[in-house]
């Protein structure tokens, strides 16, 4: 079956611009996660959705970052006034509600470059 998909695969933007990154989770997965992976680092948690609501947004670095999941499926991560330090690979993952194994299925990521 289809896995987690993310678009675009690559995004280059100028400092100060607004960007949107999209995630399509696995069908039937109610939990959705966004992570950011900088060079030489592991994935860093940003936000977690259970259904349509953000259950934990403690990882969002500041108020320039916002994410939505209006119908409980597709999610969009929005970054305002981008900075060069926002350059990273943004990973999305999904999992089944109540999955004891905590296993999360990751998409291939969106590589964001802010020039």
């Amino acid at each position, binding site marked *: 079956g289809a896995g*987690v998909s993310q678009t675009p695969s690559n995004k280059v933007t100028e400092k100060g611009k607004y960007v949107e990154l999209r995630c399509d989770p696995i069908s039937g997965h109610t939990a959705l*996660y966004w992570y950011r992976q900088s060079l030489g680092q*592991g994935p860093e*948690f940003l936000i977690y959705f259970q259904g349509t609501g953000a259950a*934990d947004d*403690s990882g969002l670095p500041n108020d320039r970052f916002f994410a939505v999941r209006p119908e409980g499926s597709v999610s969009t991560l929005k970054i305002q006034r981008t900075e060069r330090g926002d350059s990273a690979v943004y*990973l999305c993952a999904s999992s089944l509600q109540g999955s004891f*194994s*905590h296993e*999360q299925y990751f998409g291939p990521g969106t590589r964001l470059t802010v020039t």
Partner: protein
Amino acid sequence: DQQVKQNSPSLSVQEGRISILNCDYTNSMFDYFLWYKKYPAEGPTFLISISSIKDKNEDGRFTVFLNKSAKHLSLHIVPSQPGDSAVYFCAASGWGDDKIIFGKGTRLHILP
């Protein structure tokens, strides 16, 4: 402050031998531990996990050992195969917490 630490950025192992990847954690509230494998230009894929009530979990060539008193876990791959060359991330989660905390990863090279 890193809660999950992988102190070896890279490791080279001869094909057919055992690969041992190590991970340390600082948060005693973690009760579930996972290993993910990542190839270039792909997202991480789940490999194996272990609950804090166990000290060993095995799945084919992969075995994870957990030493709670030392706050240490390790992943053993035997025998190592060329397709095992990848970056391996150790990760941890607390009870009732869906958030996963990742280490920085160890790049494993399997030598022919």
